Protein backbone atom coordinates (compact mmCIF):
# COMPACT_ATOMS: atom_id res chain seq x y z
CA UNK A 1 0.00 0.00 0.00
CA UNK A 2 1.43 3.36 -0.89
CA UNK A 3 1.96 6.01 1.68
CA UNK A 4 -0.59 8.20 0.04
CA UNK A 5 -3.16 5.52 0.39
CA UNK A 6 -2.39 5.10 4.05
CA UNK A 7 -2.74 8.82 4.56
CA UNK A 8 -6.15 8.77 2.97
CA UNK A 9 -7.33 6.01 5.19
CA UNK A 10 -5.98 7.79 8.18
CA UNK A 11 -7.78 10.94 7.22
CA UNK A 12 -11.00 9.04 7.12
CA UNK A 13 -10.22 7.86 10.59
CA UNK A 14 -10.03 11.44 11.83
CA UNK A 15 -12.86 13.09 13.64
CA UNK A 16 -14.25 16.38 12.46
CA UNK A 17 -14.36 18.11 15.85
CA UNK A 18 -16.64 20.68 14.29
CA UNK A 19 -17.78 22.24 17.50
CA UNK A 20 -14.31 23.30 18.55
CA UNK A 21 -13.09 26.81 17.82
CA UNK A 22 -10.40 27.02 15.20
CA UNK A 23 -7.49 27.72 17.52
CA UNK A 24 -8.29 24.81 19.78
CA UNK A 25 -8.45 22.19 17.08
CA UNK A 26 -4.75 21.52 17.34
CA UNK A 27 -4.96 21.15 21.10
CA UNK A 28 -7.23 18.11 21.05
CA UNK A 29 -6.50 14.76 19.51
CA UNK A 30 -8.81 14.05 16.60
CA UNK A 31 -8.25 10.34 16.16
CA UNK A 32 -11.12 7.94 15.98
CA UNK A 33 -11.12 5.23 18.63
CA UNK A 34 -10.55 1.73 17.36
CA UNK A 35 -11.60 -1.65 18.59
CA UNK A 36 -8.98 -3.69 20.35
CA UNK A 37 -9.68 -7.35 20.49
CA UNK A 38 -9.06 -9.87 23.23
CA UNK A 39 -6.00 -12.05 23.56
CA UNK A 40 -6.29 -15.77 23.15
CA UNK A 41 -8.97 -17.45 25.18
CA UNK A 42 -6.97 -18.82 28.08
CA UNK A 43 -4.76 -15.83 28.59
CA UNK A 44 -7.73 -13.51 28.34
CA UNK A 45 -9.53 -15.71 30.80
CA UNK A 46 -6.73 -15.25 33.26
CA UNK A 47 -6.68 -11.54 32.71
CA UNK A 48 -10.43 -11.32 33.11
CA UNK A 49 -10.14 -13.15 36.37
CA UNK A 50 -7.62 -10.62 37.57
CA UNK A 51 -9.69 -7.74 36.27
CA UNK A 52 -12.72 -9.00 38.08
CA UNK A 53 -10.78 -9.21 41.30
CA UNK A 54 -9.46 -5.72 40.98
CA UNK A 55 -12.21 -3.34 40.06
CA UNK A 56 -11.15 0.25 40.15
CA UNK A 57 -14.13 2.45 40.43
CA UNK A 58 -14.24 6.02 39.25
CA UNK A 59 -15.06 8.09 42.29
CA UNK A 60 -17.37 10.46 40.51
CA UNK A 61 -20.81 10.86 42.08
CA UNK A 62 -23.03 11.67 39.15
CA UNK A 63 -26.39 11.52 40.91
CA UNK A 64 -28.15 11.02 44.18
CA UNK A 65 -27.40 7.29 44.03
CA UNK A 66 -23.78 8.13 44.75
CA UNK A 67 -24.87 8.58 48.34
CA UNK A 68 -25.07 4.82 48.55
CA UNK A 69 -21.46 4.47 47.53
CA UNK A 70 -20.21 5.96 50.78
CA UNK A 71 -21.49 3.23 53.07
CA UNK A 72 -20.19 0.80 50.51
CA UNK A 73 -16.69 2.17 50.89
CA UNK A 74 -16.67 2.46 54.65
CA UNK A 75 -16.55 -0.15 57.36
CA UNK A 76 -20.18 -1.21 57.28
CA UNK A 77 -20.03 -2.83 53.86
CA UNK A 78 -16.32 -2.53 53.01
CA UNK A 79 -16.09 -2.99 49.29
CA UNK A 80 -12.31 -3.31 49.44
CA UNK A 81 -12.63 -6.95 50.46
CA UNK A 82 -14.09 -7.61 47.01
CA UNK A 83 -11.11 -5.94 45.42
CA UNK A 84 -13.05 -2.83 44.64
CA UNK A 85 -11.21 0.44 45.17
CA UNK A 86 -12.05 4.02 44.29
CA UNK A 87 -9.71 5.88 41.92
CA UNK A 88 -9.75 9.64 41.66
CA UNK A 89 -9.08 9.81 37.95
CA UNK A 90 -10.82 8.17 35.01
CA UNK A 91 -7.46 7.37 33.44
CA UNK A 92 -6.92 4.70 36.04
CA UNK A 93 -10.46 3.54 36.71
CA UNK A 94 -12.04 0.50 35.14
CA UNK A 95 -15.59 0.69 36.48
CA UNK A 96 -17.81 3.68 36.04
CA UNK A 97 -20.68 3.72 38.51
CA UNK A 98 -23.28 6.11 37.20
CA UNK A 99 -25.04 7.16 40.35
CA UNK A 100 -28.63 7.61 39.34
CA UNK A 101 -30.35 10.30 37.31
CA UNK A 102 -28.16 12.02 34.80
CA UNK A 103 -29.06 15.51 33.77
CA UNK A 104 -27.96 16.76 30.40
CA UNK A 105 -25.22 18.69 32.01
CA UNK A 106 -24.04 15.60 33.86
CA UNK A 107 -24.30 13.22 30.94
CA UNK A 108 -21.86 15.42 29.09
CA UNK A 109 -19.34 14.92 31.87
CA UNK A 110 -20.20 11.25 32.08
CA UNK A 111 -19.42 10.82 28.40
CA UNK A 112 -16.20 12.75 28.76
CA UNK A 113 -15.08 10.67 31.70
CA UNK A 114 -16.17 7.42 30.14
CA UNK A 115 -14.19 8.13 27.02
CA UNK A 116 -11.15 8.99 29.10
CA UNK A 117 -11.19 5.63 30.85
CA UNK A 118 -8.84 3.05 29.44
CA UNK A 119 -10.46 -0.15 28.30
CA UNK A 120 -11.55 -2.72 29.12
CA UNK A 121 -13.98 -0.55 31.00
CA UNK A 122 -17.26 -1.33 32.60
CA UNK A 123 -20.34 0.65 33.49
CA UNK A 124 -22.67 -0.02 36.35
CA UNK A 125 -25.84 2.01 36.13
CA UNK A 126 -27.43 2.65 39.42
CA UNK A 127 -31.09 3.23 40.15
CA UNK A 128 -34.24 3.36 38.12
CA UNK A 129 -33.41 6.73 36.66
CA UNK A 130 -30.67 5.27 34.54
CA UNK A 131 -32.93 2.50 33.34
CA UNK A 132 -35.99 4.39 32.24
CA UNK A 133 -35.87 7.81 33.84
CA UNK A 134 -37.40 6.69 37.10
CA UNK A 135 -39.33 9.37 38.82
CA UNK A 136 -37.80 11.88 36.45
CA UNK A 137 -39.13 10.13 33.36
CA UNK A 138 -40.97 13.27 32.31
CA UNK A 139 -38.29 15.78 33.23
CA UNK A 140 -37.06 18.13 30.53
CA UNK A 141 -33.58 17.86 31.91
CA UNK A 142 -32.70 14.25 32.69
CA UNK A 143 -32.12 11.40 30.34
CA UNK A 144 -34.27 8.31 30.45
CA UNK A 145 -32.08 5.55 29.11
CA UNK A 146 -28.37 5.57 29.84
CA UNK A 147 -27.62 2.85 27.32
CA UNK A 148 -28.40 5.21 24.49
CA UNK A 149 -25.36 7.21 25.40
CA UNK A 150 -22.80 4.79 26.76
CA UNK A 151 -22.79 1.01 26.85
CA UNK A 152 -23.99 -0.32 30.19
CA UNK A 153 -22.92 -3.65 31.62
CA UNK A 154 -25.02 -3.96 34.72
CA UNK A 155 -28.14 -2.15 35.82
CA UNK A 156 -29.06 -2.06 39.45
CA UNK A 157 -32.70 -1.22 39.88
CA UNK A 158 -34.10 0.66 42.81
CA UNK A 159 -34.68 4.15 43.97
CA UNK A 160 -32.19 4.08 45.40
CA UNK A 161 -30.68 0.62 45.56
CA UNK A 162 -29.16 -0.19 48.91
CA UNK A 163 -25.46 -1.07 49.28
CA UNK A 164 -26.36 -4.75 49.37
CA UNK A 165 -27.90 -4.37 45.95
CA UNK A 166 -24.76 -2.62 44.81
CA UNK A 167 -22.66 -5.47 46.03
CA UNK A 168 -24.92 -7.84 44.17
CA UNK A 169 -24.51 -5.69 41.11
CA UNK A 170 -20.74 -5.77 41.41
CA UNK A 171 -20.84 -9.51 41.78
CA UNK A 172 -22.96 -9.75 38.68
CA UNK A 173 -20.40 -7.59 36.90
CA UNK A 174 -17.62 -9.86 38.05
CA UNK A 175 -19.41 -12.86 36.67
CA UNK A 176 -19.93 -11.12 33.38
CA UNK A 177 -16.30 -10.11 33.23
CA UNK A 178 -15.14 -13.59 33.93
CA UNK A 179 -17.46 -14.87 31.28
CA UNK A 180 -15.88 -12.42 28.88
CA UNK A 181 -19.16 -10.68 28.21
CA UNK A 182 -18.10 -7.17 29.10
CA UNK A 183 -16.91 -5.76 25.80
CA UNK A 184 -18.53 -2.34 26.27
CA UNK A 185 -15.39 -0.68 25.16
CA UNK A 186 -15.46 -2.26 21.74
CA UNK A 187 -19.19 -1.93 21.51
CA UNK A 188 -18.91 1.77 21.98
CA UNK A 189 -16.40 1.96 19.18
CA UNK A 190 -18.42 -0.20 16.85
CA UNK A 191 -21.58 1.81 17.34
CA UNK A 192 -19.62 5.02 17.73
CA UNK A 193 -21.65 7.06 15.25
CA UNK A 194 -24.92 5.98 16.76
CA UNK A 195 -23.81 6.89 20.25
CA UNK A 196 -22.49 10.20 19.05
CA UNK A 197 -25.74 10.98 17.28
CA UNK A 198 -27.71 10.29 20.45
CA UNK A 199 -25.32 12.26 22.57
CA UNK A 200 -25.23 15.26 20.32
CA UNK A 201 -28.96 15.27 20.03
CA UNK A 202 -29.37 16.20 23.63
CA UNK A 203 -26.09 17.97 24.35
CA UNK A 204 -26.48 21.15 22.39
CA UNK A 205 -23.49 22.89 23.91
CA UNK A 206 -20.93 20.39 22.67
CA UNK A 207 -17.75 22.39 23.18
CA UNK A 208 -15.42 19.44 23.30
CA UNK A 209 -13.86 17.14 20.75
CA UNK A 210 -15.95 14.34 19.33
CA UNK A 211 -13.98 11.78 21.24
CA UNK A 212 -12.34 12.75 24.49
CA UNK A 213 -9.11 10.82 24.45
Amino acid at each position, binding site marked *: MSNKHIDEIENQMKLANESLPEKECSLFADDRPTTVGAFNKYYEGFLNWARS*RSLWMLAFGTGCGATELRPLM*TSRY*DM*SRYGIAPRPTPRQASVFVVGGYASIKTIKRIIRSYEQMQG*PKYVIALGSCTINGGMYYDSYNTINRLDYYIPVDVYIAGCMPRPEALIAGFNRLKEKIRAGECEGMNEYVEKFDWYKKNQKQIIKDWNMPDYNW
Partner: protein
Amino acid sequence: MSIWTQVLYAAISVTVATVYGLTLGGIVRKIYARVHGRFGPPVWQPFLDIIQTSSRRVSVSHGNMFLLGPVFRLAGGLGTYLFIPVIFGSALFGNFSMAGDLLLVMYFVFFGQLGMALGAGQGGHPYSPLGIARGLAQMSAFEVPFTLAVIAVAIQYNSLNITSIVAAQQGSFLNWTLFTNPLAVIAAMISMLGMNMHSPFSIVLAPQEIPIGPPIEMNSGFLSILQTNRGLFAAAKLVLFMNLFFGGATNLLEMIAKTFFIYMFSVFVGAAYPRFRPEQSFRFFLKWPTVVGVLSIIYIAYLGGVS
Protein backbone atom coordinates in the same frame (compact mmCIF):
# COMPACT_ATOMS: atom_id res chain seq x y z
CA MET B 1 32.04 -14.09 39.31
CA SER B 2 31.11 -13.60 35.70
CA ILE B 3 28.95 -10.70 34.73
CA TRP B 4 26.15 -13.03 33.66
CA THR B 5 26.05 -14.74 37.01
CA GLN B 6 25.85 -11.35 38.52
CA VAL B 7 23.00 -10.34 36.27
CA LEU B 8 21.19 -13.55 37.09
CA TYR B 9 21.66 -12.98 40.80
CA ALA B 10 20.49 -9.43 40.44
CA ALA B 11 17.37 -10.59 38.63
CA ILE B 12 16.56 -13.02 41.39
CA SER B 13 17.25 -10.44 44.04
CA VAL B 14 15.06 -7.87 42.33
CA THR B 15 12.22 -10.32 41.94
CA VAL B 16 12.33 -11.28 45.57
CA ALA B 17 12.42 -7.67 46.63
CA THR B 18 9.54 -6.71 44.39
CA VAL B 19 7.37 -9.55 45.56
CA TYR B 20 8.23 -8.78 49.11
CA GLY B 21 7.60 -5.07 48.71
CA LEU B 22 4.24 -5.64 47.08
CA THR B 23 3.21 -8.09 49.76
CA LEU B 24 4.14 -5.52 52.35
CA GLY B 25 1.90 -3.09 50.52
CA GLY B 26 -0.93 -5.60 50.76
CA ILE B 27 -0.29 -6.06 54.44
CA VAL B 28 -0.40 -2.33 54.96
CA ARG B 29 -3.77 -2.11 53.32
CA LYS B 30 -4.96 -4.92 55.51
CA ILE B 31 -3.70 -3.15 58.60
CA TYR B 32 -5.27 0.12 57.61
CA ALA B 33 -8.53 -1.72 57.06
CA ARG B 34 -8.38 -3.33 60.46
CA VAL B 35 -7.72 0.03 62.05
CA HIS B 36 -10.82 1.26 60.28
CA GLY B 37 -12.74 -1.79 61.43
CA ARG B 38 -12.93 -3.34 57.96
CA PHE B 39 -11.84 -6.65 56.55
CA GLY B 40 -9.76 -5.08 53.88
CA PRO B 41 -8.53 -6.54 50.63
CA PRO B 42 -6.52 -9.72 50.53
CA VAL B 43 -2.77 -9.26 50.93
CA TRP B 44 -2.19 -10.27 47.36
CA GLN B 45 -4.42 -7.48 46.11
CA PRO B 46 -1.41 -5.40 44.87
CA PHE B 47 -0.48 -8.21 42.49
CA LEU B 48 -4.00 -8.37 41.15
CA ASP B 49 -3.99 -4.64 40.71
CA ILE B 50 -0.77 -4.79 38.75
CA ILE B 51 -2.11 -7.50 36.50
CA GLN B 52 -5.28 -5.54 36.03
CA THR B 53 -3.59 -2.29 35.06
CA SER B 54 -1.08 -3.94 32.80
CA SER B 55 -3.82 -5.91 31.10
CA ARG B 56 -5.56 -2.81 29.84
CA ARG B 57 -5.80 -3.03 26.11
CA VAL B 58 -5.32 0.63 25.38
CA SER B 59 -3.38 3.46 26.89
CA VAL B 60 -2.91 7.14 26.38
CA SER B 61 0.42 8.88 26.10
CA HIS B 62 1.10 12.59 26.22
CA GLY B 63 4.50 12.40 24.61
CA ASN B 64 7.87 10.81 24.87
CA MET B 65 8.76 12.24 28.23
CA PHE B 66 5.41 11.05 29.57
CA LEU B 67 6.21 7.63 28.20
CA LEU B 68 9.64 7.61 29.79
CA GLY B 69 8.48 8.98 33.13
CA PRO B 70 7.44 5.62 34.58
CA VAL B 71 10.49 4.02 33.01
CA PHE B 72 12.69 6.51 34.82
CA ARG B 73 10.79 5.80 37.98
CA LEU B 74 11.22 2.07 37.88
CA ALA B 75 14.79 2.42 36.70
CA GLY B 76 15.34 4.63 39.72
CA GLY B 77 13.87 2.01 41.98
CA LEU B 78 15.84 -0.77 40.36
CA GLY B 79 19.04 1.22 40.47
CA THR B 80 18.58 2.20 44.08
CA TYR B 81 17.97 -1.38 44.99
CA LEU B 82 20.80 -2.74 42.90
CA PHE B 83 23.41 -0.53 44.51
CA ILE B 84 22.51 -1.72 48.00
CA PRO B 85 23.95 -4.94 49.37
CA VAL B 86 20.80 -6.60 50.68
CA ILE B 87 22.09 -9.47 52.73
CA PHE B 88 25.43 -9.28 54.43
CA GLY B 89 27.85 -11.78 53.06
CA SER B 90 25.51 -13.15 50.44
CA ALA B 91 26.65 -13.19 46.85
CA LEU B 92 23.12 -13.74 45.65
CA PHE B 93 21.86 -10.62 47.34
CA GLY B 94 25.03 -8.60 47.07
CA ASN B 95 23.81 -6.75 43.97
CA PHE B 96 26.07 -4.22 42.26
CA SER B 97 27.18 -2.58 45.45
CA MET B 98 30.74 -2.42 44.19
CA ALA B 99 29.78 0.46 41.89
CA GLY B 100 29.39 2.97 44.61
CA ASP B 101 28.71 3.67 48.21
CA LEU B 102 25.95 5.14 50.30
CA LEU B 103 26.09 8.47 48.50
CA LEU B 104 25.38 6.79 45.20
CA VAL B 105 22.32 5.13 46.67
CA MET B 106 21.09 8.35 48.19
CA TYR B 107 21.38 10.19 44.91
CA PHE B 108 20.01 7.39 42.81
CA VAL B 109 16.79 7.79 44.72
CA PHE B 110 16.40 11.12 42.95
CA PHE B 111 16.83 9.55 39.54
CA GLY B 112 13.38 8.05 39.53
CA GLN B 113 11.74 10.98 41.19
CA LEU B 114 13.13 13.46 38.73
CA GLY B 115 12.19 11.33 35.76
CA MET B 116 8.72 10.73 37.07
CA ALA B 117 8.30 14.42 37.74
CA LEU B 118 9.25 15.16 34.16
CA GLY B 119 6.90 12.53 32.78
CA ALA B 120 4.04 13.71 34.91
CA GLY B 121 4.83 17.26 33.93
CA GLN B 122 4.36 16.47 30.29
CA GLY B 123 0.96 15.07 31.13
CA GLY B 124 -0.17 18.67 31.14
CA HIS B 125 -2.58 18.26 34.00
CA PRO B 126 -2.33 21.05 36.56
CA TYR B 127 -2.47 18.68 39.50
CA SER B 128 0.74 16.96 38.43
CA PRO B 129 3.02 19.93 38.97
CA LEU B 130 1.13 20.82 42.11
CA GLY B 131 1.85 17.40 43.52
CA ILE B 132 5.42 17.48 42.31
CA ALA B 133 6.02 20.89 43.80
CA ARG B 134 4.78 19.54 47.09
CA GLY B 135 6.81 16.39 46.75
CA LEU B 136 10.06 18.11 45.87
CA ALA B 137 9.66 20.60 48.65
CA GLN B 138 8.87 17.91 51.17
CA MET B 139 11.77 15.85 49.90
CA SER B 140 14.18 18.71 50.37
CA ALA B 141 12.89 19.03 53.92
CA PHE B 142 12.97 15.41 55.04
CA GLU B 143 16.33 14.84 53.44
CA VAL B 144 17.85 17.20 55.99
CA PRO B 145 17.42 15.02 59.09
CA PHE B 146 18.11 11.92 57.04
CA THR B 147 21.35 13.34 55.72
CA LEU B 148 22.42 14.41 59.16
CA ALA B 149 21.76 10.89 60.37
CA VAL B 150 23.71 9.41 57.49
CA ILE B 151 26.60 11.74 58.17
CA ALA B 152 26.51 10.70 61.81
CA VAL B 153 26.65 7.08 60.71
CA ALA B 154 29.51 7.83 58.35
CA ILE B 155 31.42 9.48 61.15
CA GLN B 156 30.66 6.64 63.50
CA TYR B 157 31.92 3.90 61.20
CA ASN B 158 34.34 6.14 59.35
CA SER B 159 32.97 4.81 56.12
CA LEU B 160 30.34 5.40 53.51
CA ASN B 161 30.61 1.85 52.31
CA ILE B 162 27.36 0.13 53.18
CA THR B 163 28.92 -3.28 53.46
CA SER B 164 31.46 -2.10 55.98
CA ILE B 165 28.78 -0.22 57.88
CA VAL B 166 26.85 -3.46 58.17
CA ALA B 167 30.00 -5.37 59.04
CA ALA B 168 30.68 -3.01 61.89
CA GLN B 169 27.28 -3.74 63.38
CA GLN B 170 27.68 -7.50 63.46
CA GLY B 171 28.22 -9.48 66.60
CA SER B 172 25.56 -8.48 69.03
CA PHE B 173 22.37 -6.53 68.63
CA LEU B 174 23.96 -4.00 70.94
CA ASN B 175 26.28 -3.12 68.07
CA TRP B 176 23.40 -1.86 65.99
CA THR B 177 23.36 1.81 65.26
CA LEU B 178 20.02 1.84 66.96
CA PHE B 179 21.82 1.35 70.25
CA THR B 180 25.16 2.92 69.56
CA ASN B 181 23.78 6.09 68.03
CA PRO B 182 20.10 6.33 68.91
CA LEU B 183 19.77 10.01 68.05
CA ALA B 184 20.72 9.42 64.44
CA VAL B 185 18.22 6.60 64.23
CA ILE B 186 15.46 8.78 65.61
CA ALA B 187 16.18 11.49 63.08
CA ALA B 188 16.33 8.99 60.26
CA MET B 189 13.15 7.18 61.29
CA ILE B 190 11.21 10.43 61.41
CA SER B 191 12.44 11.35 57.98
CA MET B 192 11.44 7.88 56.82
CA LEU B 193 7.86 8.86 57.59
CA GLY B 194 8.24 11.54 54.98
CA MET B 195 9.92 9.20 52.53
CA ASN B 196 7.18 6.62 52.74
CA MET B 197 4.58 9.32 52.35
CA HIS B 198 2.04 7.81 54.64
CA SER B 199 -0.02 10.35 56.48
CA PRO B 200 0.61 12.77 58.04
CA PHE B 201 3.03 13.32 55.17
CA SER B 202 0.87 12.08 52.33
CA ILE B 203 0.67 15.53 50.79
CA VAL B 204 1.84 14.45 47.37
CA LEU B 205 -0.84 12.00 46.39
CA ALA B 206 -3.45 13.60 48.66
CA PRO B 207 -6.48 12.04 46.94
CA GLN B 208 -8.93 14.47 48.47
CA GLU B 209 -7.09 17.66 47.57
CA ILE B 210 -5.21 17.10 44.36
CA PRO B 211 -6.61 13.77 43.24
CA ILE B 212 -3.56 11.51 43.30
CA GLY B 213 -1.27 14.36 42.23
CA PRO B 214 1.60 13.60 39.87
CA PRO B 215 0.39 10.32 38.34
CA ILE B 216 -3.09 11.66 37.62
CA GLU B 217 -2.66 11.14 33.89
CA MET B 218 -0.83 7.84 34.26
CA ASN B 219 -2.85 4.96 32.95
CA SER B 220 -2.73 1.31 32.01
CA GLY B 221 0.79 0.03 31.51
CA PHE B 222 2.39 3.22 32.75
CA LEU B 223 0.57 2.86 36.00
CA SER B 224 1.47 -0.79 36.34
CA ILE B 225 5.15 0.13 36.05
CA LEU B 226 4.69 2.69 38.78
CA GLN B 227 2.93 0.13 40.97
CA THR B 228 5.73 -2.35 40.49
CA ASN B 229 8.20 0.31 41.45
CA ARG B 230 6.22 1.09 44.54
CA GLY B 231 6.87 -2.40 45.81
CA LEU B 232 10.49 -2.52 44.79
CA PHE B 233 11.32 0.93 45.98
CA ALA B 234 9.70 0.37 49.35
CA ALA B 235 11.82 -2.73 49.76
CA ALA B 236 14.95 -0.86 48.72
CA LYS B 237 14.39 1.91 51.21
CA LEU B 238 13.68 -0.53 54.00
CA VAL B 239 16.78 -2.54 53.23
CA LEU B 240 18.82 0.64 53.27
CA PHE B 241 17.44 1.60 56.66
CA MET B 242 18.00 -1.88 57.93
CA ASN B 243 21.60 -1.80 56.78
CA LEU B 244 22.38 1.56 58.20
CA PHE B 245 20.61 1.44 61.49
CA PHE B 246 19.48 -2.04 62.37
CA GLY B 247 22.52 -4.17 61.86
CA GLY B 248 21.73 -5.43 58.37
CA ALA B 249 20.75 -9.00 57.76
CA THR B 250 22.66 -12.19 57.34
CA ASN B 251 19.83 -14.15 55.80
CA LEU B 252 16.59 -13.58 53.99
CA LEU B 253 14.44 -14.33 56.98
CA GLU B 254 16.21 -11.83 59.15
CA MET B 255 15.89 -9.27 56.42
CA ILE B 256 12.18 -9.83 56.14
CA ALA B 257 11.64 -9.71 59.85
CA LYS B 258 13.61 -6.53 60.35
CA THR B 259 12.27 -4.60 57.40
CA PHE B 260 8.76 -5.61 58.34
CA PHE B 261 9.08 -4.01 61.73
CA ILE B 262 10.80 -0.93 60.34
CA TYR B 263 7.95 -0.52 57.94
CA MET B 264 5.32 -1.02 60.56
CA PHE B 265 6.59 2.07 62.31
CA SER B 266 5.54 4.34 59.50
CA VAL B 267 2.37 2.35 58.93
CA PHE B 268 1.22 2.75 62.50
CA VAL B 269 2.00 6.44 62.49
CA GLY B 270 0.20 6.74 59.19
CA ALA B 271 -2.87 4.94 60.43
CA ALA B 272 -3.10 7.13 63.48
CA TYR B 273 -2.58 10.66 62.16
CA PRO B 274 -4.44 12.89 59.74
CA ARG B 275 -2.67 14.68 56.95
CA PHE B 276 -0.55 17.80 57.37
CA ARG B 277 -0.86 20.81 55.17
CA PRO B 278 2.22 21.15 52.95
CA GLU B 279 3.83 23.99 54.84
CA GLN B 280 3.25 22.23 58.15
CA SER B 281 5.02 19.20 56.81
CA PHE B 282 8.06 21.17 55.63
CA ARG B 283 8.29 23.06 58.85
CA PHE B 284 8.00 19.87 60.86
CA PHE B 285 11.01 18.29 59.21
CA LEU B 286 13.09 21.41 59.41
CA LYS B 287 12.48 21.74 63.11
CA TRP B 288 12.80 18.90 65.59
CA PRO B 289 14.10 16.07 63.43
CA THR B 290 16.81 18.42 62.17
CA VAL B 291 17.72 19.36 65.71
CA VAL B 292 17.91 15.70 66.60
CA GLY B 293 20.08 15.10 63.56
CA VAL B 294 22.46 17.87 64.53
CA LEU B 295 22.57 16.52 68.07
CA SER B 296 23.42 13.09 66.76
CA ILE B 297 26.38 14.52 64.88
CA ILE B 298 27.49 16.49 67.91
CA TYR B 299 27.14 13.38 70.02
CA ILE B 300 29.14 11.26 67.66
CA ALA B 301 31.75 13.71 66.50
CA TYR B 302 32.39 15.93 69.43
CA LEU B 303 31.22 14.20 72.57
CA GLY B 304 33.00 10.97 71.82
CA GLY B 305 29.92 8.93 71.10
CA VAL B 306 32.08 6.35 69.43
CA SER B 307 33.67 4.46 72.24
